[in-house]
């Protein structure tokens, strides 16, 4: 049984358009994803593909005008608000993108503790500081005084308690020095080795395939392929979906072939495959209806031509 199982998750926002008419804008569609203990699953995709929303949906911290449908199961049980209330910040932890997720007016040391900490966690957090090689003085700094690398470690340390079983890391490596990226990835790898399930949300495919077991590719609010990380290699022929292949081949070391066109913005109510107008294998049938998820080899794909 997977630790976290997301089935048919859709997210819509209620928006006010001109006048005061309300409109539901769907930003994520029928997303399926599962993750086991000790496993690292990466969700990759360009910005605007809705991948951060997935993190917020699982944590139950979407804004009030968001509506979700589908199911999120944790440890075999439905993850509802009551359950989340006890799990958030204890068993399920979020590693945010940047230091702007820390309160600017509270010293780091004090801020790391939450009202869910017992004395045990209190001392555990101190131990983490040593483990991440953060000096004791760091606890007395304010967030804006942290250097990039330090901030990264502090943010990861918020999640790295032993009670944590699922870590959701939202863009943990943006604009980081390669050494720091390696360091950050090492930390996640280590946490997974200790039995954590790690959901890594990133636009950095290279970073993702370096540590992930599975990679889910997100496009315009839906996951179009889930593949073992090892399929991202060579010319990308192992990949199932034309978009995954194009994304892979757009990397500098893989030919640097740009993908023409732009990702359609969500909520336009497009018919058929969302990638159709950029896909070189598109046929008329592609535009009729959404592609269902299919199991192909050891992956999942939403494309009628996938082999």
């Amino acid at each position, binding site marked *: 049984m997977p630790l976290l199982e997301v089935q048919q998750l859709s997210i819509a926002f209620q928006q006010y358009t001109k006048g005061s008419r309300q409109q539901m804008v769907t930003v994520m569609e029928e997303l399926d994803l599962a993750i086991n203990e000790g496993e690292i699953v990466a969700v990759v995709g360009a910005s605007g593909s809705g991948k951060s929303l997935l993190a*917020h949906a699982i*944590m139950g*911290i979407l804004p009030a005008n968001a509506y979700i449908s589908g199911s999120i199961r944790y440890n075999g049980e439905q993850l509802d608000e009551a359950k989340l*209330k006890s799990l*958030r*910040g*204890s068993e399920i*932890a*979020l590693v*945010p993108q*940047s230091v*702007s*997720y*820390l*309160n*600017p*007016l*509270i010293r780091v040391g004090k801020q790391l503790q*939450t*009202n*869910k900490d017992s004395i045990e966690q209190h001392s555990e957090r101190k131990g983490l500081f040593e483990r991440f090689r953060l000096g004791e003085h760091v606890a007395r700094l*304010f967030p*804006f*005084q942290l250097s990039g690398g330090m901030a990264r470690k502090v943010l990861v340390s*918020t999640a790295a308690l032993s009670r944590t079983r699922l870590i959701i890391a939202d863009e943990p490596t943006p604009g980081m020095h390669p050494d720091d990226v390696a360091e950050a990835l090492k930390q996640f790898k280590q946490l997974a080795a200790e039995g954590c399930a790690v959901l890594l949300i990133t636009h950095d495919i290279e970073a993702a395939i370096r540590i992930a077991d599975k990679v889910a590719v997100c496009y315009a609010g839906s996951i179009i392929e889930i593949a073992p990380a090892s399929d991202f290699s060579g010319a990308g022929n192992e990949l199932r979906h034309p978009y995954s292949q194009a994304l892979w081949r757009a990397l500098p070391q893989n030919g640097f072939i740009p993908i023409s066109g732009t990702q359609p913005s969500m909520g336009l109510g497009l018919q058929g495959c969302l990638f159709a107008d950029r896909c070189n294998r598109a046929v008329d049938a592609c535009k009729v209806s959404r592609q269902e998820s299919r199991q192909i080899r050891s992956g999942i794909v939403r494309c009628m031509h996938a082999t």
Partner: protein
Amino acid sequence: MLQRLAVFTGKKIIRLFLLLATVSIITFALVAMSPIDPVQSYIGADVMRVGTEQRAEIAAYWGLDKPFAERFIKWAGAMLQGDMGTSMIYRESVTKIIAERFIHSALLMAFAWSLSGVIGFAAGVVAALKRGSWIDRAITSYCYTLASTPAFWVGLLLMMVFAVWLGWLPIGLGVPAGMLAGTVTAADYIKHMILPGVTLSVVGIAPIALHTRQKLIEVMDSDYILFARARGESGASLFFRHALRNIALPAITLQFASFGELFGGAVLAEQVFSYPGLGQATVEAGLRGDVPLLMGLVLCSTLFVFTGNALADFFYQMVDPRLRLQKEAQR
């Protein structure tokens, strides 16, 4: 820290002196140019019985026949020795008048200031936390209405309702009319302060409430509140641990920076309720060309407003760790 505090204070004191000097010169010049004849207002109702010669004598007695520069230098010299002169209309030492009235005004303003601060802050917090609800709409529309309502009008309205119709509170003055000073009780003072105080605070609530609401909405939408929620904080602990201090500082700063409006409002409120404070004295001194008293009052109010702004600056620069530590790092 102590050293920085000393530098901060030193700079402020130098500024204050420059400001006071400038304000003195300008006020003095303005009064000298004003069409009000101080001799005329000094004589008042006795106008028929005073001849031209006597007028000249009076002018000479107050030094009004001397040229502007000479008068100013004489006044400034005395001022530097701590002598603010004698009021022409009250015929008492300016120091004594200001001291007496200052107590009245200070109590009034302190009352209004704390009231508007506490109510405004609380209203702003409630509005922001219940954003979009009827209570938020009620608070914001109340604030917008008040922000565009003149203080004297609010004062008149309150006076009509509570003093004239209901008769709960005295119509005006600082103490009951015709009572011996010794027999006036603290309750009397308070009773007379309520209406002008409330008038003054009612107008002061709007800016602090709207500002706090805006800030808190920003804070509640911020990444760090989102993350705090993701870490399991919620409800009251979320607000007190993560939001309160982030909105308290701007609110305190704003509240101190509003000393100018507070004093301006006090002038009007005191006028409406004939409350014997600094504001009322300022109006009197201005209208009747009482130069020594007016100068004393102007300097006094400048000092007051300046102190408020300096405190606001202090909170802004010295208490917010981002500004404080950045400044230290630059050194």
